[in-house]
């Protein structure tokens, strides 16, 4: 039992379903581990001791009644922008610091129905705006592979929790790379499904047309199991896609024969330094060794992704975040009249990055600027999606870096633009709504770094080709085994 907290989701579900161990036992060990590890890692904004124990007891009861659940007893980290009834749901923001959600997000509910145990609400960049988790107003989260480094973001808490064995599945949300980049930084698989495949109901919106929920896990199989459980049409989300849902966990292959993998001409890795350049060259060769045919593809408009994204996402956020006004819930700072109350509440409640994006977005939508900024950005977005469609005429998957560097140290990216650049390789896929994931692809020791840090290979598939995408990632993961090469530096002695 002592190593049970390190089991993957698939192993846990097998163990609980077969009666080898109970969800309650595992949850107890998990909570004890969380309590010991959290002071170092800080993955969670709230740990759900009672809730987890009660849920585990119910899962055990269901197993006893003869039910078999695909994720029986699997400890789950829920990013704190997803509603779970009766829990604090803060978005990492002062403005929602004390807000308790009265309802549960669809994707969260589906994982609970599948047998998951919610052990904690995970830290994040405020309103999912950031790439390091440093924009959280409510706590610091550290990278379990080097506590002096960031876990990535915005789903940094979920990534850190899964990497530190404080959960087997982390729920993330990805707007421009917020699942894939922290997965790369924390030696995890991070999967963003096709836009519309997972319901956004109960996910606190950052940029509605880009936000997509997905899993962070230690294996591709776990990501597939989580996706199969949370995905599918939801009548509560008008953007959720109503077409047959293809499961993925039952279709994972071990080779890449017959798969054409596109290498993006514009994403040359030379400028990332010789060590990283070599690492990606090796990753592409490994894909070839598995039977894939490498082809060069062009994404000529991808370089406009960042500029496009930083108009569309702020525009939507400027409107989405208007509701945090102090009237109905969350922080309220009183004023002489309602307008002063709005101003004081929002001034005190939002952090600098959130304010920056609200201002950019408000400007981009303003009369006189709308056509020049918002409308042009939408046109660029269409062109980027068309580039992908053209590329997929000659390949089945696209391989690219997930991030341009390994996890960096705290305060290393003090100017916003250098932080925005972290998502250079992930944003185009988000704009095109494509399914994409990051899978561990090796280790590099950053200059001055104490230990090797993980890197991620980003694989992207055409719309709705989740099955092919996860299958390929699984083949690559099995053949290379990069994730197992290092262990987190957090103190594991007490549990072993």
């Amino acid at each position, binding site marked *: 039992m002592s190593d049970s907290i390190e089991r993957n989701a698939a192993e846990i579900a097998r163990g609980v379903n077969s009666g080898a161990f109970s969800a309650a036992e595992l949850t107890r060990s998990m909570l004890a581990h969380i309590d010991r590890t959290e002071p170092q890692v800080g993955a969670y904004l709230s740990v759900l001791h009672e809730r987890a124990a009660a849920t585990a007891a119910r899962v055990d009861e269901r197993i006893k009644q003869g039910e078999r659940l695909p994720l029986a007893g699997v400890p789950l980290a829920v990013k704190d922008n997803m*509603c779970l009834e009766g829990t604090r749901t803060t978005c990492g923001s002062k403005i929602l610091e004390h807000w308790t*959600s009265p309802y549960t997000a669809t994707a969260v509910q589906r994982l609970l129905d599948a047998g998951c145990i919610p052990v904690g609400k995970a830290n994040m960049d405020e309103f999912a705006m950031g790439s390091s988790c440093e924009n959280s107003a409510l706590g610091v989260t550290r990278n379990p592979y080097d506590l002096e480094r960031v876990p990535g973001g915005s789903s940094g808490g979920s990534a850190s929790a899964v990497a530190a064995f404080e959960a087997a599945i982390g729920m993330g949300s990805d707007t421009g790379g917020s699942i894939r980049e922290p997965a790369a930084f924390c030696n995890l698989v991070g999967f963003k499904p096709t836009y519309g495949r997972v319901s956004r109901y109960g996910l606190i919106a950052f*940029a*509605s*047309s880009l936000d997509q929920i997905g899993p962070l896990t230690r294996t591709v199989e776990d990501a597939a199991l989580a996706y199969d459980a949370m995905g599918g049409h939801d009548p*509560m989300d*008008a953007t959720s896609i109503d077409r047959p849902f293809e499961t993925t966990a039952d279709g994972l292959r071990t080779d890449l024969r017959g798969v054409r993998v596109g290498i993006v001409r514009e994403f040359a890795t030379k400028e990332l330094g010789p060590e990283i350049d070599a690492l990606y060259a090796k990753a592409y060769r490994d894909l070839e060794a598995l039977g894939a045919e490498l082809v060069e593809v062009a994404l000529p408009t991808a370089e406009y992704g960042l500029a496009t994204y930083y108009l569309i996402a702020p525009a939507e956020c400027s*409107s989405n975040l*208007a*509701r945090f006004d102090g009237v109905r819930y969350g922080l309220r700072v009183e004023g002489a009249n309602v307008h002063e109350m709005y101003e004081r509440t929002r001034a005190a409640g939002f952090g600098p990055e959130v304010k920056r994006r609200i201002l950019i977005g408000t400007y981009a939508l303003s009369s006189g600027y709308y056509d020049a900024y918002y409308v042009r950005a939408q046109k660029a977005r269409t062109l980027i999606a068309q580039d992908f469609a053209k590329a997929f005429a000659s390949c089945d998957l696209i391989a690219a870096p997930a991030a341009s560097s390994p996890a960096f140290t705290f305060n290393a990216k003090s100017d916003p633009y250098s932080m925005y650049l972290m998502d250079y390789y992930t944003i185009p896929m988000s704009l095109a709504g494509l399914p994409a994931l990051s899978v561990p692809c090796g280790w590099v020791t950053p200059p001055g770094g104490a230990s090797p840090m993980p890197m991620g290979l980003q694989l992207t598939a055409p719309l709705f080709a989740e099955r092919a995408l996860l299958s390929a990632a699984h083949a690559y993961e099995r053949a290379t085994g990069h994730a197992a090469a290092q262990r987190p530096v957090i103190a594991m002695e007490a549990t072993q």
Partner: protein
Amino acid sequence: MQYEAVIGIECHVELKTATKMFCGCPNEFGGEPNTKVCPVCLALPGSLPVPNRAAIDHMVRAGLAVEAAIPTFSKFDRKNYFYPDMPKDYQISQFDMPLTQGGVVKYWLEDGTMKSCRLTRIHLEEDTGKSTHAGSGDGRISGSTYSLIDFNRAGVPLMECVSEPEIHSADEAVAYLESLRRTLQQLGVSDVKMEEGSLRCDANVSIRPVGASELGTKTEIKNMNSFRSVHRAIQSEIARQIAVVEAGERIVQETRGWDEINGTTISMRSKEQAHDYRYFPDPDLVPMEITAAYVDALRETIPEAPWKRFLRYTQSYGLNVLQATQLIDTQPLASYFDAVVAASDNAQQATNFVLGDLSRLANESGTPVWLSAVSPEHLAELIVLVDGKTINSKIAKELLVRMWAGEGSPKALVEREGLAQTSDPAAIEAFVVDVLAANEKSVNDYRAGKTNVMGFLVGQVMKASRGKADPALVNDVVKKKLEQ
């Protein structure tokens, strides 16, 4: 100088649906505050809107009823501004691609003149909550110490309907509103009750010298709670503007509130806030594709337009404006009337019965005509019996009361009870001879010049015939006999 008023009317109409526009909460008037709310209409973090298909159907039907074009593509946009009773601090509305385009409201004035006013736009949006300001004593926000918000109304589907400035008097404005109201009511898309707020309207009023083509500076009049206050407010505002111009001053573009008690408009906001609503397509809602098949199916459900019915009633049936309007304004009564006309082919008699005797019986009993025991077919039978002189109007009235009581077909009653009118001169003469013989004094009085006893004698004959004698014939025979 002679002035012409130029008026445009902006209406907000709450659509009648089971649930709200974007969530499953009941769409009902009233109730304890904040009892008809959910995460979606309270805009709790993470909630998402899902459009109500019934409201979209209503919009398309309303558009078809006013001859608007229905585009093949439409979408929802966000109108961004902060307001405490608007939970998301943006309103889901429609900006540049509403569900309907154009349209025209045709209406008639009291003298029967037909008029029409084109529509600038109709679009679909959501209603806000309601604020109550407390602590100021008079319910006004100024001086209040706190405000309470009821979100029961938040998210109710709302149709905005803006007219072109083509209305030129308070009478026309009210006639326009009446026409719009009856059109929407007959479609069943709204209760259109001003007193419950399911119809709200503002008026944009300006004046210009008669013959001028340029528009004058307009003011927007709010707070009109009935058609009567719309009429009074517009009249008062036109008079005020004329007085301002005559005094050599300029009209200020502003919003003015109608003060019902003092009968005048009062400046509310002299400086229009230049709102930038930052409209953009709502990314939570997918664009709507509207197929021809869908529109055609809805077109089938549109009843005859009230203005067309008005022309039919007044021009083909010869009803007067009041009668036509009375029927049209009670749609089930108009349908009933149409059925009676169709079966009897006598619009004048149908009008007399439906608006006369039947309406009186309805008022007395509280049962509407169209729900009464008198079916349109039975009433038509009765009219045919009268037309064919099978019964006289007195018997007809008696029969109608019995039909109202549920005795069924008048034809069957007449046959069963032998109530058919007697038009046989010999039979009538026999009754007359008997009556004159029994009333010698009256006969002598008549012959002495007291001709007013004639009525009494005719009555006696009718009585003797148990009402069945043809009264006109009785009249003739009595007269003839008396003057022999």
